[in-house]
């Protein structure tokens, strides 16, 4: 059986031949074995793996993205059909597109998680400020990829999302109109728009991401992994490097002592994306893009729903300020973080304001996302009808009033017995709150976001409508 043992040695011999001839020992292996703080052997080391998991998902995005680009046709007349082909007919197309879709959500989540961990561990402080700055650009690039990717679906939602994006760009002071025209690459969303978003999504931003990841990883290795923070041991730029050199002298090699955790969590992330893609598949496309079909209901993907909700909920007067100012403030803050707080305590227990600066936006954004999912401010435009529970036993004027409730679009914004829009108050028991006179007054003159109906209903119709509403006790 010695020949079996001889064959068993072949892979190792090939590996060492490659390693030696390609001089990997001095390059790749030397980098992989760079020393990291010994504390990473302890359970706290699990916090240090999110960046690697993000990188693994990024590789998925590149690979599936290249696959999709083999079939996707970035032409306004064909993009939708080519995506339908990928999703339904192409071999494994649904899984490839599904992985790209769930991968994009995973990218957004993991980048934010990584950033939150780095922030709470105070790892952005001296001498790692540039790690944070390149990371901030990577966050921007990830969000830009997520947004441009959604537009490439080129269905009704995507089409109107571009219009919304252009209108938001137009709110910027001075250069607003130029920005809007650059977003749609012309005067309207049309033939030139899709190819620009495509080139931006597959060439421009990825090129930036590759460069930024290169810088980011170079700095991670050169500056070294930050040691777990200890309360009462602040960063002192004058003495930090000497102390850190001492920490690394007692350190462990990244490969394989710490890398196995990275590999394990990265595997987990990749498997989750694959399982989601296999079980759920590619997201269904909406209707084909048709600017002359006004029955559109554009919604961004789930991670942007919170921002979508912001735009509906803020007072209109503050809107331009919020649309332009809020993202600007968020990103300026992001870039200023390492410049304003390069030294001092790193441990979160000594940085209550920093913890609040993370917790509050997360809680607020979660609440906004829930609001965005329900979007109660949106009128219901399809399927207008009252359930039998709301019309049971009606006759005469009240029955006519119930019909008017639907035909005059009251239903679009008001619910009765769980049917209708939720923009205005639920009217199931409105008669127990308002008298006939108050109801008449309210319908005729509107107010509080409700249009005045005096001009669009006859006095008799108004009377019948109120007769119906008066039955809702």
């Amino acid at each position, binding site marked *: 059986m010695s020949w079996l043992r001889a064959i068993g040695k072949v892979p190792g011999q090939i590996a060492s031949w490659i390693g030696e001839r390609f001089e990997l020992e001095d390059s790749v292996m030397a980098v992989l074995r760079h020393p990291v703080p010994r504390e990473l052997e302890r359970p706290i080391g699990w916090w240090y793996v999110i960046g690697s998991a993000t990188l693994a998902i990024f590789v998925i995005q590149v690979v599936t993205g290249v696959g999709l680009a083999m079939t996707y046709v970035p*032409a*306004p*007349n064909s993009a939708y059909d080519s995506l339908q082909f990928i999703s339904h007919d192409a071999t494994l197309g649904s899984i490839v597109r599904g992985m790209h879709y769930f991968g994009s959500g995973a990218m957004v989540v993991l980048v934010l998680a990584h950033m939150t961990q780095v922030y709470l561990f105070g790892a952005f402080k001296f001498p790692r400020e540039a790690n944070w700055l390149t990371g901030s650009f990577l966050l921007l690039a990830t969000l830009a990829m997520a947004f441009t990717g959604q537009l490439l679906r080129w269905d009704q939602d995507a*089409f*109107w999302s571009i*219009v*919304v994006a*252009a*209108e*938001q760009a*137009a*709110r910027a002071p001075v250069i*607003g*109109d*130029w920005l*809007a*025209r*650059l977003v*749609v*690459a*012309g*005067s*309207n*969303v*049309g*033939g*030139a*728009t899709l190819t620009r978003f495509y080139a931006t999504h597959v060439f421009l931003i990825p090129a930036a991401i590759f460069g930024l990841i290169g810088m980011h990883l170079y700095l991670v290795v050169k500056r070294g992994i930050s040691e777990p923070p200890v309360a009462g041991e602040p960063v002192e730029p004058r003495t930090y490097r000497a102390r850190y050199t001492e920490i690394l002298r007692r350190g462990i090699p990244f490969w394989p002592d710490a890398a196995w955790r990275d590999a394990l969590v990265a595997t987990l992330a990749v498997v989750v994306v694959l399982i989601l893609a296999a079980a759920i598949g590619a997201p269904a496309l909406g209707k*084909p*893009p*048709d*600017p*002359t079909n*006004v*029955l*559109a*209901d*554009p919604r961004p993907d789930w991670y942007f729903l919170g921002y979508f909700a912001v*735009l*509906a909920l803020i007072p*209109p007067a503050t*809107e*331009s300020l919020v649309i332009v100012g809020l993202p600007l403030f968020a990103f300026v803050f992001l870039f200023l973080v390492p410049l304003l707080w390069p030294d001092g305590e790193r441990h979160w227990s000594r940085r209550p304001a920093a913890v609040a600066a993370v917790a509050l936006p997360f809680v607020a954004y979660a609440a906004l996302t829930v609001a965005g999912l329900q979007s109660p*401010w*949106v*009128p219901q*435009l399809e399927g207008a009808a009252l359930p039998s529970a709301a019309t049971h036993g009606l006759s005469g004027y009240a029955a006519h009033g119930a019909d008017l409730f639907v*035909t*005059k*679009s009251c239903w*679009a*914004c008001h619910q009765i017995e769980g049917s209708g829009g939720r923009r205005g108050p639920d009217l199931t028991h409105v008669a127990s709150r308002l008298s006939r006179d108050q109801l008449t007054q309210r319908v005729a003159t*509107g107010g509080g*976001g*409700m*249009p*005045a*109906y005096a*001009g*669009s209903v006859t006095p008799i119709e108004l009377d019948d409508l109120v007769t119906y509403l008066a039955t809702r006790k």
Partner: protein
Amino acid sequence: MDPAGARRGRTLNEISRRRFLSRVTLALTAFIGGIVGLPILGYLLAPLFRAPTDELVPVGAVADFPLGETKLVSIRDPSPLAWAGQTADTALWVRRREAAGPSMFQVFNVNCTHLGCPVNWQAGAQIFLCPCHGGVFYSDGTVAGGPPPRPLFEREWQVSGDRLLVRQQPLPTVKQG
């Protein structure tokens, strides 16, 4: 000349020679950057400099618009690209106010003045509703509720013979008004 002086002279010469060479190299690099960058920058910014056409184009026969009704019509975008297909069209709401005269029609862009989503005409209620953030407009385009900062954008129109003509226009934004 003594040996020390010769050495010093050579060192000085080499420093200025190196400085000269590095400046030449940097200048050439910047020149290459300019040669590559300027045309591509102009190419990418071209949409800013191309003035869209703004002709009056027919959207239908006057008789197609019954008095008091508001109808959806489509209009070709100004200077569309050959491969734009369906996306080169834009929709408009046309309201017939009077039988004849200068206020016979009102022609609205479908774009909500909030963030551009298409508004829906509710004939029964005589209002426009926006599906994105719930903007509401009256039949004459004025704001009835929700976030829109201004009335619906109107388009210039003309009646020529028995046809209604409407002016082509870029995507309207709050600032253009």
